[in-house]
């Protein structure tokens, strides 16, 4: 048996251990809805006993709280957040592009879209003209259909440009958030290194993990644990964002109409992957230019072929046909710049050379362009259908990929939360365990009280307080 002093030590240790355990449960319950909070568990360690002069002293207990954190799982979750954020951003951008062309899951064919209808109506108006080449109203309807077609190309091209502009703004916003978060993480690195260089830093660690998770939503990261519980973060292409207590800001600069990202003065735009930025850059720099180019090719081919055929005929004034559409010299920006070159209904060269102005042979030839392979070996309508099919399949693939990434993220997050998250059921179970232990100890206390009361009062039952 120890001395009274050693017994007091044991009691104090027991009190502290008990208090710590209850505090931890209280903290867990109080933080049940706190984003990023990692559940803490109590571990009890028996203090080593000391033997002096044959007697053993001290068998107290200490308690310590540790966060239930699996760093490998945390990193997996963060990497998955990056993949999911990229696929989500790409899906969102592609859906905006689908909206530009009025494509949706209910769109039955290309010809039911604004652009498809405009192409069909234009060639249809030329067929009508072939039946009645001298009618001014019919000639006027050709010009009207041509204007509608040019406007549809202009509008689609402008809207694609607006999508690109919006993605540029998203890049600037993302970079600003990245810089704010890297500053926060560097500051947390400093605090963690100072306060807890060799062990889990609890709430500070939670805050740092949460900041890294938010950063992962924005950009792909590589994470390296460094000495004294520090973390170094680089972009997926190696540009350092955080090193110890220092953060390195990204910046943006306009280059040829698009916003580029600089790290330490170097342009890192083409190598950035992961996160919202990765998805935005993929949509803006890889997908969008292809769509814009296809639209330009279509506008240029239709305009050029119609102009060439019109030049082979004779217009309503008896003159050789002139260009109906004004176009740039190459297909570049053709969809944005295509215009109807004339307001004169007689400018349409319906007659062939030698037929006189009332002829219709060239109008038929113009109408027949609808079924001619004038764009990359396809008819205008066929090319448009392929083009829309490509946008649709790209978007569908992005949606499928994003759903898969989201499912994986949910799975990993569930796995992490089952380890690190606070479960009220678990804490309720802990509470019950504490309650039962308390009641059992109270019972021991009450019986001891009775025994001692008997002793003090020479067998007369009473209560000692």
């Amino acid at each position, binding site marked *: *048996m120890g001395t009274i002093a050693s017994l007091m030590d*044991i009691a104090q240790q027991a009190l502290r*251990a008990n208090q710590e355990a209850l505090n931890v449960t209280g903290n867990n*319950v109080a933080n049940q809805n706190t984003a990023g909070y990692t559940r803490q568990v109590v571990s009890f360690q028996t203090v080593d006993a000391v033997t002096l002069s044959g007697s053993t002293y001290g068998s107290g207990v200490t308690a310590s709280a540790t966060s239930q954190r699996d760093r490998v799982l945390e990193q997996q979750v963060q990497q998955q957040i990056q993949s999911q954020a990229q696929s989500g951003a790409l899906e969102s951008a592609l859906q905006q592009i689908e909206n530009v062309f009025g494509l949706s899951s209910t769109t039955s064919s290309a010809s039911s879209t604004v652009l498809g209808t405009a192409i069909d109506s234009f060639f249809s108006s030329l067929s009508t003209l072939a039946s009645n080449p001298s009618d001014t109203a019919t000639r006027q309807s050709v010009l009207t259909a041509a204007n509608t077609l040019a406007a549809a190309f202009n509008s689609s091209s402008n809207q694609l440009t607006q999508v690109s502009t919006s993605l540029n703004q998203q890049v600037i916003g993302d970079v600003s958030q990245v810089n704010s978060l890297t500053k926060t993480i560097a500051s947390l690195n400093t605090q963690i290194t100072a306060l807890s260089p060799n062990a889990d830093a609890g709430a500070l660690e939670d805050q740092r993990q949460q900041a890294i998770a938010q950063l992962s939503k924005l950009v792909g990261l590589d994470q390296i644990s460094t000495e004294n519980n520090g973390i170094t973060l680089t972009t997926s292409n190696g540009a350092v964002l955080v090193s110890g207590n220092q953060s390195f800001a990204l910046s943006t600069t306009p280059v040829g109409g698009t916003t580029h990202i600089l790290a330490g003065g170097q342009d890192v735009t083409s190598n950035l992957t992961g996160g919202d930025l990765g998805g935005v850059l993929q949509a803006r720099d890889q997908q969008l230019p292809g769509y814009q180019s296809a639209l330009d090719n279509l506008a240029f081919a239709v305009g050029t072929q119609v102009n060439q055929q019109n030049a082979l005929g004779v217009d309503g004034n008896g003159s050789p046909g002139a260009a109906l559409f004004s176009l740039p010299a190459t297909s570049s920006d053709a969809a944005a710049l295509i215009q109807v070159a004339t307001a004169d209904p007689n400018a349409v060269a319906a007659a062939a050379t030698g037929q006189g102005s009332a002829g219709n042979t060239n109008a038929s030839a113009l109408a027949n362009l609808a079924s001619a392979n004038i764009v990359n070996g396809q008819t205008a309508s066929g090319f448009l259908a392929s083009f829309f099919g490509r946008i649709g399949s790209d978007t569908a693939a992005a949606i499928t990929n994003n759903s898969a990434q989201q499912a994986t993220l949910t799975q990993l997050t569930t796995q992490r939360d089952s380890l690190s998250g606070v479960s009220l059921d678990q804490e309720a179970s802990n509470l019950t365990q504490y*309650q*039962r*232990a308390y009641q*059992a100890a109270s019972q*021991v206390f009450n*019986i001891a009280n009775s025994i001692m009361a008997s002793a003090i009062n020479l067998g007369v039952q009473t209560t000692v307080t």
Partner: protein
Amino acid sequence: MAIDRTLVDILEETADALSTFDFGKLNALEQRIVLLAESNTKVPRDGIGVALQRKRQLEIILKNCQINLDALNRLHARNMRNQWAQ
């Protein structure tokens, strides 16, 4: 073993077991002290000092536990209410 020594051991072990919420050990201790009480053995008056110290310490721990448990139960009930309200 003298009854006062046994009593002190039980009280010490109870404090330890309560510190680690060792329910199994507490149950065993409860059975031991029930048997001790049923034996009607009298504790010698001169040997009761240390036992009283241990009892007083256990009493402090129990009071502390009660306060914490009340707070935790209130906290838990509030969070459950919030969860149902969501």
